[in-house]
């Protein structure tokens, strides 16, 4: 769909198409990217927007993801609004540059399509790629569906570029399940997105030749630590910015976002915490269980970095039992990354639920309603008066024994 959008409209789009449309409307100065399944389509579509003259973007076709992120960081340091996109092994190859982008405080925005990491080779969804990058200093926003991918990507530009933040943001969606699944997506008019993202002014652009400067210099024992402390503070400050940007976005779109979505949580006694597309399936299961009188709920984490620890703790501490679903393992014997974060967030709560972890869906293994129902029933039992201990803390859901 290589046309301009003048009024708000509903279109049938895949997640990748929705991401590409958001990028077209953002109209970044520079996009440097390399193809990788299942992200390829985003950049491929975007490159047709470039050749059709629908964007004014300088498109740089690089020879690897290491170069893609290097070129994007370079462009951002020059003062450009710069974007790229990747998946899985591509993100892994960007590793070195991820930390550099965050440390240099360049507000790069990157759609990241979740896919399992080799080995064995697998092209389908799990979260091990972005979870591996969770401590790289990037902000991370997870999307449940194509609409959220679109909305999150547009908001990410404002979050990243806010002077209190100045950090790169990765916006993820589940590979194939969302990236290649078609749904109705509400697109904002091009003008509205342009007005929302606004004109961009990087505070230290290298291309401002009247004021020459150095970015990414040497800082040793005497100063490095101070710069990292600044960086940590910027991640803290991002929390307010994320909420303020969401508020403003609600005004133009009618769609409201927070750090997480609480679904049927008001009187819930037990719940699951999930990331990404699994939330859709889990909501369906929760609706069914609710009809049968079960007091179950769901929390879908949208913002994983910064992690909304205190806010989650407040929401979850009154529950009897909690299951955290992870589409990645940490291979630490301690459970998945989401589990570890949620459990840590609850540690200081005066009252806290019993917590178990489900690792599921690795390498794109389907997570069907029956599996989620099974997990929810186990969690319910765990919360009952008669429950004796917790049993296995880390459980593998949907694996063949």
């Amino acid at each position, binding site marked *: 769909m290589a046309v301009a959008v003048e009024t708000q409209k509903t279109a049938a789009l895949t997640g990748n198409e929705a991401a590409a449309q958001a990028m077209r409307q953002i109209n970044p100065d520079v996009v440097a990217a390399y193809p990788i399944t299942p992200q390829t389509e985003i950049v491929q579509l975007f490159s047709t927007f470039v050749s059709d003259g629908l964007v004014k973007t300088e498109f740089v076709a690089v020879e690897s993801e290491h170069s893609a992120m290097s070129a994007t960081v370079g462009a951002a340091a020059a003062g450009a609004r710069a974007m790229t996109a990747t998946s899985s092994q591509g993100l892994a190859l960007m590793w070195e540059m991820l930390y550099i982008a965050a*440390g*240099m*405080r360049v507000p790069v925005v990157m759609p990241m399509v979740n896919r399992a990491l080799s080995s064995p080779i697998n092209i389908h969804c799990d979260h091990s790629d972005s979870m591996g990058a969770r401590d790289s200093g990037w902000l991370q926003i997870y999307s449940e569906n194509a609409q959220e991918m679109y909305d999150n990507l547009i908001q990410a530009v404002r979050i990243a570029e806010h002077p209190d933040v*100045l950090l790169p943001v990765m916006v993820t969606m589940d590979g194939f399940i969302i990236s290649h699944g078609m749904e109705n997506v509400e697109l904002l008019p091009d003008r509205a997105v342009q007005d929302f993202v606004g004109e961009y002014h990087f*505070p*230290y652009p290298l291309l401002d030749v009247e*004021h*020459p*400067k*150095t*970015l*990414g*210099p040497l*800082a*040793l024992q*005497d*100063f490095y*630590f*101070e*710069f990292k*402390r*600044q*960086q940590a*503070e910027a991640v803290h400050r991002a929390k307010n910015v994320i909420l303020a940007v969401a508020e403003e976005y609600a005004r133009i779109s009618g769609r409201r976002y927070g750090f997480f979505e609480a679904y049927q949580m008001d009187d819930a006694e037990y719940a699951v915490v999930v990331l990404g597309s699994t939330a859709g399936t889990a909501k369906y299961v929760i609706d069914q269980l609710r009809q049968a009188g079960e007091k179950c709920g769901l929390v879908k984490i949208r913002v994983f970095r910064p992690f909304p620890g205190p806010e989650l703790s407040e929401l979850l501490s009154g529950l009897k039992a909690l299951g955290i679903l992870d589409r990645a393992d940490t291979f630490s014997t301690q459970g998945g990354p989401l589990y570890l974060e949620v459990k840590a967030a609850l540690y200081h709560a005066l009252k806290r639920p019993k917590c178990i972890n489900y690792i599921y869906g690795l390498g794109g293994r389907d997570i069907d309603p029956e599996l989620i129902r099974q997990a929810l029933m186990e969690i319910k039992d765990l919360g009952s008066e008669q429950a004796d201990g917790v049993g296995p803390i880390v459980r593998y859901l949907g694996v063949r024994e």
Partner: protein
Amino acid sequence: MTLSSQTKNLLKVHQQVNVNIEPNAGWRDLPIGGVIPQAGTATQFATGDWRTIRPVWSKEKCINCHRCWLYCPDMSWISENGQIQGVDLTYCKGCGICANVCPAKVHAIEMHPEDNFKDDEVVKEG
């Protein structure tokens, strides 16, 4: 608080950025992400204190071919009116390139261990 020469050098750089930066400046007072919002601050960084071997020049042997002047990565060789005047050690890291490119038959530059000069004012503080 005693500071390493490295700290002093870094601070000189940062003082160019913001005159309010104190030697013990906290993270709130430093430019974001280590940006140095000014050019030419490398002149404040006397890299000569990295040196472990020092070029020693013989005026008598020198034929003024200027290869040392051309190849030195730190522009340490001083030339006036087409005549090499000697080496300014403020930025000389002791890489030895000058001694290597000085024509073998001329051999006007020799590298000597810094220890031989330890009583000297080794680095000119800028």
